[in-house]
């Protein structure tokens, strides 16, 4: 299957190896991956902060770029960016033409783990990753997209990986986009609860499908000198050791 990758600005600039891992996993799963270099951002920060004019600009760009692709699916290593694409029609209000175009693009857009399990129908990508890992349910992925079982199925098939479920895996990490810097104390309080559950699980690695959550969690783990690592699910699935 030919897929078009939307790598997300966060992954592109802050953790590019997640992007490379995503490509590896998709190729290993038998896909041909295309990457349109014109892409930048899905506009989520603007939409979430209330700047719908700017969000509309980003949405139009995204739609225009991906309309030129003949790929069967658009795959994104991010639950929140995928959710944004699914919500593009909200920035178009009464503009029926753009709404339809948005919906068409949204219909073929998938978060990575959901794409692997639900579209390709696979849960074993032949990965090997030794260690004890736990999964954090990123909010948009879980509640907007319904992604819950897919990553667990994928992780349980990873060779050498002991998967442990943490308490309150489905509770927010406290990122919430600009919330994390508008109300940093509250964000940190929520984050500390998440850290507590991670430590309680005994895992040496926290895995998620969203680089933003991982940035929030790893930022605190690093600040408190914890040995626990964070990994994007793409990195685990691309791993061969």
């Amino acid at each position, binding site marked *: 299957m030919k897929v078009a990758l939307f790598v997300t600005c966060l992954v592109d*600039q802050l953790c590019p190896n997640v992007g490379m891992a995503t490509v590896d996993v998709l190729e290993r799963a038998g896909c041909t991956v295309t990457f349109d270099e014109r892409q930048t951002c899905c506009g989520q920060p603007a939409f979430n902060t*209330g700047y719908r004019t700017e969000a509309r*600009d980003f949405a139009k760009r995204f739609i225009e770029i991906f309309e030129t692709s003949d790929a069967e699916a658009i795959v994104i290593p991010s639950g929140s960016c995928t959710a944004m694409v699914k919500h593009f029609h909200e920035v178009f209000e009464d503009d029926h033409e753009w709404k339809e175009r948005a919906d068409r693009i949204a219909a073929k857009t998938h978060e990575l783990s959901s794409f692997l399990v639900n579209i390709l129908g696979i849960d074993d990508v032949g990965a090997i990753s030794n260690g004890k890992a736990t999964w954090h349910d990123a909010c948009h992925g879980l509640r907007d997209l319904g992604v819950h079982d897919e990553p667990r199925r994928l992780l349980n098939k990873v060779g050498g990986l002991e998967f442990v479920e943490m308490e309150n895996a489905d509770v*927010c990490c406290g990122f919430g*986009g600009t919330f994390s810097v508008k*109300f940093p104390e509250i*964000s940190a*309080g*929520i984050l500390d609860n998440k850290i507590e559950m991670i430590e309680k699980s005994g895992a040496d690695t926290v895995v998620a499908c969203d680089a933003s959550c991982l940035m929030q969690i*790893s930022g605190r783990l690093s600040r408190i000198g914890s040995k626990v690592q964070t990994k994007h699910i793409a990195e685990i699935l691309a791993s061969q050791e």
Partner: protein
Amino acid sequence: MSTTHATSETFDRNARAALADPVLHGALRNLADSFVVRRQNAIASAGDWEGLRDRARAIKDETLLHLDQYLERFTENAKKAGATIHWARDGKEACDIVLELVRAKNANMVVKAKSMAGEEIHLNEALEAGGIEPVETDLGEWIIQLAGETPSHIVVPAIHKTKQQIADLFVEKVGIEQTDNVDVLTQTARKILRQRFAEAQVGVSGVNFGVAETGTILILENEGNIRLTTSLTKTHIAIMGIEKVIPNFADLDVFLKLLPRSGTGQRLTAYQSLITGVKKNADDIGPDELHIVMLDNGRSRMLAHPLTRQSLACIRCGACLNACPVYQQIGGHAYGSVYPGPIGAVITPQLFGLSKSKQLPYASSLCGACREVCPVKIDIPALLLHLRSEIAEGSTAAAEATTRKPGESFAFRMYSRMWSTSGTYSLSMRAARLMQRVIARDGKIGKVGGLISRLVPPLGAWTAWRDAPVVAPKSFREMWREKKK
């Protein structure tokens, strides 16, 4: 008795104060931990929980879409049964009506059952100013009345207080001996309030549901104070938000299955009173007069769009508060509004004005836990996003233009322009890569203070608690280009 209460205008300050309070932290932790389990158990006993939610939401949608018709039917039937209906455009009008009714009975005190609508209109203040003593009878409300505070939760008003704090309060205000026994504290309240019930002539309550078909009001509780308030007194005044009407008597089944489970994890609360007008014979038990005060106070405005109209579906269960990670951190007082938590963040700006509460819609990570637990499926995140766009783009009345933030607005416009082509996007990130050398150490960015945090406030805010990642030396698109060669 009255202290200065935090307002929603100082939300960030309020939140910081709340976070620094370890006692509050413990109380809120207790709430969060117990809520999850109790709710799971309650749902398990409900049968088709999702079906119930859908049905309840459908009933509310239908009612709100035809609110004028259902209100007419409700008030006509209530009148036929002997109730007197009053209409209040706003809180002040409602308070004036209540005050006049109380004065007409020559009463100098009233017993009050817990009513959020009553809190909303600041009824106690108005009664006191009018020389009438309001006596709260719900245990949680009585506790905060003694403490001179406002409720911090829709269902458990004193949840922010520990047992010890309550005991100390009773020792100070009521003169009991120090104790840590909850039963002793409860029996103290029972004894004292009994005396007030015995002398009360006028009772004031809220309304959970008003049934259009029969003119019945339903009020539910666990303690029994509502039953006492509405059966021992001669005059019952009920304050009812206009959104509380539902079409049919049989509809009560759905809401009675959802509200107790969502609110307190119970299959049913201990008591429900279904009151239809007044007694038929003079020597029957109960009040001679029932006055229902129909309260608008900004509700009708919310009917103007289906998105905002769903705010009126709220049945005041408090589940969203219990599920909210933000509420769990800061409690209710920080919101500075009678309605805290997720539902509070969306109805406070709508009822009382955006400009006074413009921080509230932003005080959320948009996690959606509230939407998940809401028995009537209110899409609170969608409402928060809508309010944020009103605030950021100032699309409502000119007066609300005071909510726009020019600096932030400029920043987002720049972000959109710079990232409108991959060329300028890459350029901006190359610049970031250069500039971060000043603050990056060992592949990450630690605490950033001083001038830099003043120039780039988000960086200071982030790094106060968390390390920040650096922009990678090579972006994905550069790696991709290399791979393709």
